[in-house]
């Protein structure tokens, strides 16, 4: 699809960046003066951005399908330095507008929820400042028309994530988790950076149009290398294997953060990166295959972890990892899966955000308790939370006709349709993952809402205030209906077609894959119900080896510690020692030898400097003499 200049209302697309940026600047620089109304401003900027996004969407729908990609240059960042010129430019096309609506729409709901959730926090204003910063960076990430702008947003959301995971930074665990998330993301960023360098070195451009237009003439090896480096970046941001371990710790952040950043939007940026880079991945089957492998492995990995967590937020975090695995898997299928990845991403944005807000609502009423073994019987006292969470539950496990059914099952179907051994293996992994998902989500439901209360002594849960429940209700409606809306009559597939191409086959609403999935889902529900219907032990049973491993995040941290951290610490210590004794020792030894007497360097006396300077001067004069005599 060719990109056309932005016209009319789209000229104001810079507002998408300016509104939340202004909000963040006012709230972070304004300090305590803005305490009283800071949260309102934070919501207002996001809502205004959403309103603009919706208007832009309407304008876009008015254009013929082939003319929907519109570009606006906001300002020149690097004027031509050699061949390199970089603009802060905005590309509004069907793909980016989906994200704009998701980020600002779900973002507004979560911010409204946070007004209630963070009401007791004296630093609420700072929280809203960081959230605005996040929204600005996330929008930059998805609407940039070049890889450098995307990268600026990419690291910007990493910063916001760092600040918000560590929002309660007086808690050491939060501070450590924040740093861990940033460093793990930087490992991914290393890949994305090198991918950008490779693009520039090969085609002399970093803009989407420039790169995509010329990449076809580059060699296969180069294209695959770029694809793999992009994948590394995606793994860091989207918590995919092997860079997954930070996401579980990131649950140290306030729950609205988990909902917006670590479920609905930021962690899906990796999927965006791959779908946006479709013209690159289309050229490399090897890179696509690795994407699917990473996705399939992570979807099982996250699901297994989700089964063993007693912390409700960590169970949901495992689930997020797993669901993003599905999206990656779909994206790795190429044109057959790009639109499916985005569809699942959007419906996941609704139901996972809803689930997290529900979890936050429970946590809020349970005096910040997150251990599901201390929950139980909440169905009776928190009915809105129960119903909305329940809809999210049904959506994520894929019970028809809720969202997950429409967006997850086609991914499984597409895997099998890929054919060959890889198709069968990927499809099977996705199928099994669906069953496990049904199990762990049923477990969460049973432990939290069913059975008899096992509450902390001083907890008196009742329903949270409307400012918190109403966003949950809206998200629940989305969880229920988004999938059908997006997938029926190929609505999203058709909308995205100009950007990501045409899938080779149409997806049936009922297919063998969806029947098989449904069977496994029912089995998972049955197993979960059978295991927890008689109540939940207050102390976790020892469990099998798999359970123990899953509780320890399948040894992801142990691996990092023994393979990266320990050797890294030794390397650091060795380097410090080498620097002090080796290099600096040599310098001092030479100085001592020149000055005579090794103790003199320490007992500096007057005249010492002078004698040294003199001896060096003599040396220099001699050298000069030699130089002039030899006459090079």
């Amino acid at each position, binding site marked *: 699809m060719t990109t056309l200049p932005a016209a009319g209302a789209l000229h*104001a697309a810079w507002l998408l960046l300016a509104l939340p940026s202004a909000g963040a600047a006012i709230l972070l620089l304004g300090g305590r003066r803005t305490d009283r109304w800071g949260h309102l401003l934070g919501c207002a900027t996001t809502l205004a951005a959403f309103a603009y996004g919706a208007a832009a969407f309407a304008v876009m729908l008015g254009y013929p399908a082939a003319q929907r990609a519109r570009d606006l240059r906001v300002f020149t960042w*690097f004027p031509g330095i050699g061949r390199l010129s970089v603009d802060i430019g905005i590309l509004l096309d069907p793909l980016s507008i989906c994200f704009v609506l998701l980020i600002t729409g779900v973002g507004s709901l979560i911010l409204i929820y946070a007004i209630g959730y963070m009401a007791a926090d004296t630093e609420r204003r700072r929280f809203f400042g960081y959230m605005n910063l996040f929204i600005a960076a996330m929008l930059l990430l998805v609407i940039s028309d070049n890889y450098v702008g995307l*990268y600026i947003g990419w690291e910007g959301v990493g910063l916001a994530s760092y600040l918000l995971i560590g929002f309660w930074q007086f808690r050491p665990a939060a501070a450590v988790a924040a740093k861990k998330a940033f460093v793990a993301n930087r490992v991914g960023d290393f890949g994305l950076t090198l991918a950008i360098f490779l693009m520039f070195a090969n085609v002399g451009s970093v803009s989407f149009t420039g790169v995509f237009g010329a990449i076809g003439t580059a060699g296969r090896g180069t294209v695959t290398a770029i694809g793999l480096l992009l994948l590394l970046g995606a793994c860091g941001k989207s918590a995919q294997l092997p860079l997954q371990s930070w996401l579980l710790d990131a649950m140290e952040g306030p729950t609205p953060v988990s909902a917006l950043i670590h479920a609905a939007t930021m962690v899906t940026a990796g999927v965006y990166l791959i779908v946006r880079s479709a013209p690159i991945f289309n050229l490399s089957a090897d890179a696509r295959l690795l994407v699917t492998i990473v996705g399939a492995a992570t979807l099982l990995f996250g699901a297994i972890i989700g089964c063993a967590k007693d912390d409700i937020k960590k169970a949901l975090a495992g689930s997020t990892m797993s669901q993003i695995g599905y999206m990656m898997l779909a994206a790795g299928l190429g044109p057959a899966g790009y639109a499916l990845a985005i569809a699942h991403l959007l419906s996941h944005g609704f139901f996972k955000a809803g689930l997290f807000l529900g979890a936050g609502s429970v946590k809020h009423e349970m005096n910040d308790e997150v251990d599901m073994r201390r929950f139980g019987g909440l169905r009776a006292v928190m009915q809105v939370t129960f119903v909305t969470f329940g809809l999210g539950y049904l959506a994520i496990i894929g019970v028809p006709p809720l969202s997950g059914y429409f967006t997850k099952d086609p991914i499984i179907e597409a895997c099998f349709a890929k054919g060959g051994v890889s198709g069968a293996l990927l499809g099977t992994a996705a199928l099994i993952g669906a069953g496990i998902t049904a199990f762990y989500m049923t477990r969460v439901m049973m432990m939290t809402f069913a059975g008899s209360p096992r509450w902390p002594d001083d907890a008196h849960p009742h329903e949270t205030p409307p400012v918190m429940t109403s966003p949950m209700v809206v998200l629940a409606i989305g969880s229920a209906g988004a999938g059908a809306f997006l997938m029926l009559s190929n609505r999203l597939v058709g909308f995205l077609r100009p950007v990501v191409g045409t899938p080779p086959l149409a997806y049936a609403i009922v297919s063998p894959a969806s029947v098989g999935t449904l069977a496994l889902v029912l089995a998972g529900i049955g197993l979960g119900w059978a295991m927890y219907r008689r109540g939940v032990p207050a102390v976790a049973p020892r469990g099998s080896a798999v359970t123990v491993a899953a509780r320890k995040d399948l040894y992801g941290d142990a691996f990092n510690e023994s393979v990266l951290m320990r050797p890294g610490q030794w390397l650091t210590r060795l380097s410090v020692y080498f620097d002090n004794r080796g*290099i600096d020792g040599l310098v001092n030894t030479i100085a001592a030898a020149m000055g005579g007497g090794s103790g003199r360097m320490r007992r*500096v006396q007057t005249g010492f400097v002078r004698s040294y300077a003199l001896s060096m001067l003599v040396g220099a004069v001699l050298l000069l003499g030699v*130089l002039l005599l030899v006459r*090079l």
Partner: protein
Amino acid sequence: MSTFPWLTVAGALPLAGAAVICFVPGAAAPGGEADRARRDQFVKWTALVATLAALGVTGAMAAAFDPGGPRFQFTQTYSWIPQFGIHYAVGVDGIALVLIVMTAILMPVVVLASWWDAEGRGNPAGEQPPKRSVKTYFALLLVLETMMIGVFAATDVFLFYVFFEAMLVPMYFMIGSYGVGQRQYAAVKFLLYSLLGGLLMLVAVIALYVYSAAGGRAGTFLFLPLTHLALSATAQRWLFAGFFVAFAIKAPLWPFHTWLPDAAASAQPGAAVLLVGVLDKVGTFGMIRYCLELFPAAAHWFGPLAITLSVIGVVYGAVVAIGQRDLKRLIAYTSVSHFGLITLGIFAMTSQGQVGATFYMVNHGFATGALFLIVGFMIARRRSQQIADYGGVQKVAPVLAGLFLVASLAGLALPGLSTFASEFLVLIGTFTRYEAAAALATTGIILAAIYMLWMYQRTMTGPVRPEVAGMRDLRPRELWAVGPLIALIIVLGVYPRPVIDLIGPAVRQTLVTVHATDPVPPHPAVAGQNRSTP
């Protein structure tokens, strides 16, 4: 404009300030404690006014500079020692100009931040400073500014050398007499190491003159004529080495770096800012101006070696920084890593690399300057340089912690902050010629995240340690000192163009002189894009 001696005035203003300060009676003068305090206040305000005046002049210069105009502007040339062709010749291209402006911005900031440093108020606990003279300290600062402006403005190689060496003297006393810890050891090490390099350079400078006088011509030290000198390949290499070692020590490039952590840890924070922020830049500035342009063939020949040392420095400096326990030493090692990036950009011989390297010199001055100053404010409160003595500072001093975080993020080159723009340019410019070296250097972005955020975590987060519980947040004077630096870091990060527009033409000229062209991409994209502007 053409006749007004801008550069001389900019350089002379601080010197005049120093002269005024010299006439203020010293501590031994009659009068009580109150009299002395009043005199000290006068000294400090004089220093502030003088540095602000110099900033005004350099700011006007930056505004009047025409990037599309002649290479050197605001030039003045007077014969100084005609027998040897030595001139008082000054002038700036875009590269020198931005470095002078950076120096002029840092000076009032340092004066403000150093308000009580001469009295030793910020020294670690248990270190009673000897009776020190406030006026000498500020006079030294001002003299140093004159030298720093001079060294960037000189267009006569001998004049450059004079400033290059003379700069050492005020800094030597600032570390040796006013520093903390092993200050004398550090000062002597700094001086001797620099002198060693300087003398090697002197040899090369004189040899250069001799060559220029070959064949009965009148010898000269003027820079531009020297760039047209036809030197044999061997001669180029030897002379290049003489300059390069001096600059590599100054910068400092691995493995000549070990004096820097000692000097930075022993200097007062303000002095450390000038040491790392400006003095060290003379090394990298010297490389791009003198090593490359005077000896183009040798620069290409030595290129791979310089690239190798740079990459080692980037990774090595970062790894060693992670292992530091002292705040100031940690920052010094991060600078070793960052200087590696700067030299990498210079010797990559691409327009992006060199624009990035020059822009990095400016940004590093602001970012590391802010970091040193904020750390200095912390040390002045807690009376310790040890990281382990802090914890939970964010809770008691949120503004200090917030600015410290921004400065740390600038240290790890976060996009949106100016350091990113320069680091990105350096790495992408290097990548087009030396893929492996750039890829290795890019690992620095991961290591930088570790050393910066770990430092922040250990000092600022967690429960409030009892020793920091009473820590005051930033005072207005301190805020006025670091606030402008933080603002510059953010503004230039979002909109780097004003500085890049100044640097660009100068770098283009440099590349022409060294006969280097950017590698051509094998599969160039078709230029031109459909887009509109708001």
